Each structure stands twice: as structure tokens, then as C-alpha cells.
């Protein structure tokens, strides 16, 4: 592949990259000026639609299409919520953008508000990003002083107020309707959809929720055009009429057992192998890889022989994972126990379930209890069936819960056990030799009598 010139990360690492004058020196806010003065909201939406941009927050929903779900000619107000809750384990690209190039994000955000007709935007940022918060707040202050925010921007009749809103350490605030409830001052219980936020969102008004990296892409689409955006990425699958393709640059987070963890930019469709070898400097300590998380812990697991998986919106699904998620890859070397991995994952989801739906609240807690039992050497082979029963039963995909947190809890369970079954069975046999003999996959919840 030819050398790729980063776009989203172009300024990262440069001195004072977070300051307005540095941003303006490389053409910052010129695109905004041009669009506000010479273009129309519909035109900006059309550009974003034509680019094929899909949301970077995890679900990959086409951004332009989402914007067109807003009721036409609505008298307002329309709200824009920027999702900077970034709490998916292993994901940190939003943090880097906010800390090091907040103006890129804000310019994209203002353009997105212009397109959608929002005149109030809330920047929902997780509490654990104090530096990001300070940098974004300073950037917002600079924007008000420069006239990029506030009343009648560039003398046009477009006005926009932007407020930061801090979370309080809860993963579920990243789910878009959980975010809205939290913004409204309530517990962050996701809402049953429909109505979708575009129709009835924050304060019961039409609302758009987008991710930080998504709006950063909007800035560049407005600048360089949709055709440029579509020169990168993966074309739609001709055999799948519902696949709109995966276009544009992507920020890949790489962590775990690699020599050089970090956030790297490449066109969508990079494979896990390429990410590890070309950017990450290979598996650390000269060891061999055993498995990897393809896109945040919710997405499940790839075995090392599946590392040719392309990281685009369709790729990980073809390898049995939930999806691309946040494209945050975690590499695990040959020393890692999958029992240990699954315990870590179950602990996270049991802690973060908001408790609203019984299958999720109970399922995540029971999964944690079972994996703890296995880890402690008291596992039975039928525990694997129990875990799979939970994994297959909770989530939006089986249709038993309100939000996708439980799909994210389910996938690591399903992938770990189905892709590494031998390891689980062997561990149980070795640690609990008297108790493993009976497998009753049929009626998993029925207690089989203990073998003497």
C-alpha cells in the first residue's frame, strides 16, 4: 500500500496543536466560513451523504441518512449532542482528538449543527478526561471570542451555542439515549426506540447524536469533498444489498501485547495483521499472538489465525464478531488465559449494566459468577453451556433487551467459548477433575447430580 498521509491526525504532536492560532495557520475555520457564507444546510447534508460517511461511535450508521430523519421544516429547537463519553474498553481516539486538536472537532461540530439546523449543542464528555475537558473548554472560549460560536456566525443568520456537559463515570452514558437521559439530569437509562432521537430526543425535541471522530470527518468532507473521501476504504459488497461500504480514514487504537501501542490512522479496511506489524511493531517480547479484540471489548474475539480480518464495517462480522465497533484492537499473546480474559470482560459488563432490563442485569451478573467459579477451580463442563445460554439469550439481536450493552456483554462470552472451547474444557478438567464428568447441554439450568 502506498504511504498514507494522515488527515485526522495531521496536527497531532505538533507544538501547541490545541490552540486556535495554530489551527488557523493551517487553514482552520476556512471551510466553516466557506460553507456558512456560500452554501446551504441541505448542501452540507448532501456532501456528507454522498461521502458515505458512517458513524465512528460503534454502530456505523450512515451519518447523512441519520440527519435526514429529522422532521423537515421543524420550528425548533433541534439539539445536537456530541458523544464524547468514550468508555468502551481499549478505545482512546476521541481523547487524542480532544486533547490535541480540539478545534478540528469543533469545526466539524459547527458544520454538523449548520447542516442539521441545531442551534444548541451539548458536548457530553466523560468525567475521566480532565485534560480533554480543559482543552475543549479553552477552545470553545477561543471560538466565542473569534466569532465562530455565538450569535450570527460570520454575519450569517446561523447562530450556535456550545456547552460542555460532564458525565460521572458510567459507561452507559455513551449509549445515545442513555446520554440524553443523563443530559436531562436523570439516571442514564436507555430509552425504548422508537421514537428515535431524531424525532424525539433531548428535552423531547429532535436531536442528533454523533461521535467526536464522526464530526471530525465531516470537517474534512466539507473541505476536500465526498469523492476524496470515497477514494479510501472498502467498496460495498455486491452480494449484500444492505452493505453501503466503508469509506474514509479511521483512527485505530492499538493496545495490549504489542511493541508500540498507540492511535494510528489508515483507510478503513486495514487488516489486524497490518495494524500489528506495520504500526504496532509486532507482538511484544518476540512472542506469538493468541487472540485479539477487533473493536473494543464488546465486539468479541479473533483467533490468531483470523488476523487477516479487515477492519471495516463488514469485516469482523464475517469472522463471527459483533462488528467493527470502535476499531480498538487489543492484542493478547500466547501467555494469556482465555478464562482470565473472559473474567475481565464479564466483570466489566456486570459492573456497567444499568439494571433496567432483567436479562441484562441478571445475565451479566450470573455470567460473572459462573466464570469466577470456573476460575476458582470449581467449574463443571456444563457451566460452558450455561454461559452460552446467557450469551445467546441477552441483547438486542435476540430481542430481549433495550440497548446494545448486553450484545456487547454477550459477544466476548460466545466468541471465547466457541473459539477456544478446548482451553476452557481442559482448564475445567484439570482444576476440577471430580466434577467435570457430566455434561447436560439440553437442560442447562437443571442441576445435574454431582458425580460421586
Amino acid at each position, binding site marked *: 500500500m502506498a504511504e498514507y498521509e494522515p488527515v485526522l491526525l495531521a496536527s497531532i504532536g505538533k507544538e501547541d496543536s490545541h490552540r486556535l492560532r495554530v489551527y488557523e495557520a493551517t487553514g482552520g475555520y476556512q471551510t466553516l466560513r466557506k460553507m456558512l457564507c456560500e452554501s446551504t444546510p441541505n448542501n452540507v447534508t448532501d456532501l456528507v451523504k454522498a461521502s458515505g460517511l458512517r458513524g465512528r461511535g460503534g454502530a456505523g450508521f450512515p451519518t447523512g441518512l441519520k440527519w435526514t430523519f429529522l422532521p423537515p421544516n421543524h420550528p425548533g*429547537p433541534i439539539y445536537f449532542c456530541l458523544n464524547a463519553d*468514550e*468508555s*468502551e*474498553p*481499549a*478505545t*482512546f481516539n*476521541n*481523547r487524542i482528538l480532544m486533547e490535541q486538536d480540539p478545534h478540528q472537532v469543533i469545526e466539524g461540530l459547527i458544520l454538523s449543527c449548520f447542516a442539521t439546523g441545531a442551534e444548541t449543542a451539548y458536548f457530553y464528555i*466523560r*468525567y*475521566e*478526561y*480532565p*485534560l480533554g475537558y480543559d482543552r475543549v473548554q479553552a477552545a470553545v472560549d477561543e471560538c466565542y471570542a473569534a466569532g465562530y460560536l455565538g450569535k450570527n456566525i460570520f454575519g450569517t443568520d446561523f447562530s450556535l*451555542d456550545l*456547552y460542555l*456537559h*460532564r*458525565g*460521572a*463515570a*458510567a*459507561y452507559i452514558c455513551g449509549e445515545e439515549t442513555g446520554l440524553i437521559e*443523563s*443530559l*436531562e*439530569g*436523570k*439516571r*442514564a437509562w436507555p430509552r425504548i426506540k422508537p421514537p428515535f432521537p431524531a424525532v424525539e430526543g433531548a*428535552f423531547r425535541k429532535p436531536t442528533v447524536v454523533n461521535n467526536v471522530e464522526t464530526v471530525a470527518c465531516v470537517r474534512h468532507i466539507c473541505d476536500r469533498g465526498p469523492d476524496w473521501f470515497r477514494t479510501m476504504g472498502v467498496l460495498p459488497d455486491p452480494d449484500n444489498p444492505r452493505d453501503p461500504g466503508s469509506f474514509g480514514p479511521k483512527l485505530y*487504537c*492499538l*493496545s*495490549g*501485547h504489542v511493541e508500540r*501501542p*498507540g*492511535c494510528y490512522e489508515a483507510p478503513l479496511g486495514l487488516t489486524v495483521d497490518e495494524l500489528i506489524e506495520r504500526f504496532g511493531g509486532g507482538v511484544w517480547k518476540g512472542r506469538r499472538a493468541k487472540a485479539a*479484540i477487533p473493536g473494543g*471489548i464488546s465486539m468479541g474475539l479473533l483467533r490468531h489465525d483470523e488476523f487477516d480480518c479487515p477492519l471495516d464495517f463488514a469485516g469482523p462480522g464475517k469472522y463471527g464478531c459483533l462488528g467493527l465497533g470502535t476499531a*480498538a484492537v*487489543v492484542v*493478547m499473546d500466547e501467555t*494469556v488465559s482465555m478464562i482470565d*480474559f473472559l473474567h*475481565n*470482560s464479564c*466483570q*466489566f459488563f456486570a*459492573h*456497567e449494566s*444499568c439494571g433496567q432490563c432483567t436479562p441484562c442485569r441478571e445475565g451479566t451478573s450470573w455470567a460473572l459468577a459462573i466464570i469466577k467459579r470456573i476460575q476458582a477451580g470449581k467449574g463443571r463442563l456444563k457451566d460452558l453451556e450455561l454461559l452460552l445460554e446467557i450469551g445467546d439469550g441477552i441483547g438486542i439481536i435476540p430481542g430481549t433487551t433495550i440497548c446494545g450493552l448486553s450484545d456487547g456483554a454477550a459477544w466476548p462470552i460466545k466468541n471465547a467459548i466457541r473459539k477456544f472451547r478446548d482451553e476452557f474444557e481442559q482448564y475445567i478438567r484439570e482444576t476440577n477433575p471430580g466434577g467435570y464428568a457430566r455434561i447436560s447441554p439440553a437442560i442447562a439450568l437443571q442441576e445435574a447430580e454431582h458425580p460421586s
Partner: protein
Amino acid sequence: MATAERILTDEMLEEIRAFFPRYPTRQAVTLPALHVVNEHLRYVPQQAVVEIAELLDLVPSQVQDTLSFYGFFKQDTPHGRTRVWVCRSISCHLRDGDDLLDYLCQQAGVQPGETTEDGKLTIEAAECLGACEHGPCMLAGKKLHTCLTREKLDAFLQTLE
């Protein structure tokens, strides 16, 4: 209801009122108000909940309901002068972070969620802090500590005031 001594100072009231114009409802000021009180007092006692509710035209149970959802706000006693969040999620865990939380707790003589007797330190188990490329890590107040080791934790404990 007997009026307990007021907890929200004029300064806090002013900080909270500054949020009013930002939102179309008063209830939306709940989280900002809880943060204001928490930053001043390092906890949000029940009397503060009553006063926040009054200020936001809510009943206390609405504010309490929100507060209790976010395990972040302590209600009985203030957290320590330094509050640390030690990451226990996957990327940090894989980079030998698995025993750092235990080690820190052991050295400080407390369990996760507790405060040392001298009031210097509260230790919390955190889920991913979004700094996984520097794992294992922890957030102490506003400062991120990266690539942690036991030695770094020992040194950190010496700096507490």
C-alpha cells in the same frame, strides 16, 4: 421540616445558577450541581440534595435518584484529599496491571472505595480510563499516571498530602 444548617454556600449557589441558561429545563442542571458540590465538599451529603432540589424546582427524591445511579458521588463521608482511579480493564490488565490495584490497597491499608484514616487517599477501581496505550494507568485527581509499576505506586504514596 426542621431546617438543618445550610450546606450550599453562596459561592456554590452562584456556580450552580450559572448553568441555568444553558439548558431548557432546571432538572438538566442536576449533574452540574452535583459536580459543583462534590468539588467543594468531596461528597454530596443528603442536606445538599435537599437544597439542590429546592434550587432546581425538583423534589429531593428526583435528585437522590440521579445521584444514586452514578456511583461517583459519595454521600456519607467525603472522599480523601486525593482520589485515585486505578484501571482494571483489559488493556491495562494485560500489561501486568492486574495486581497494582491490590498492591496500592494493601500499601494504603484500605479496600477499593475506601478512604485512608488520615483522609489523604481514596482508592477506586476504575473501568477503562481511555488511556490504554499507556497502560497500566491510573488517574489521581486530574493527573494521569502511566505505565505504572509497584515502584511508581510507592513513590506516588510518598507525595500525598
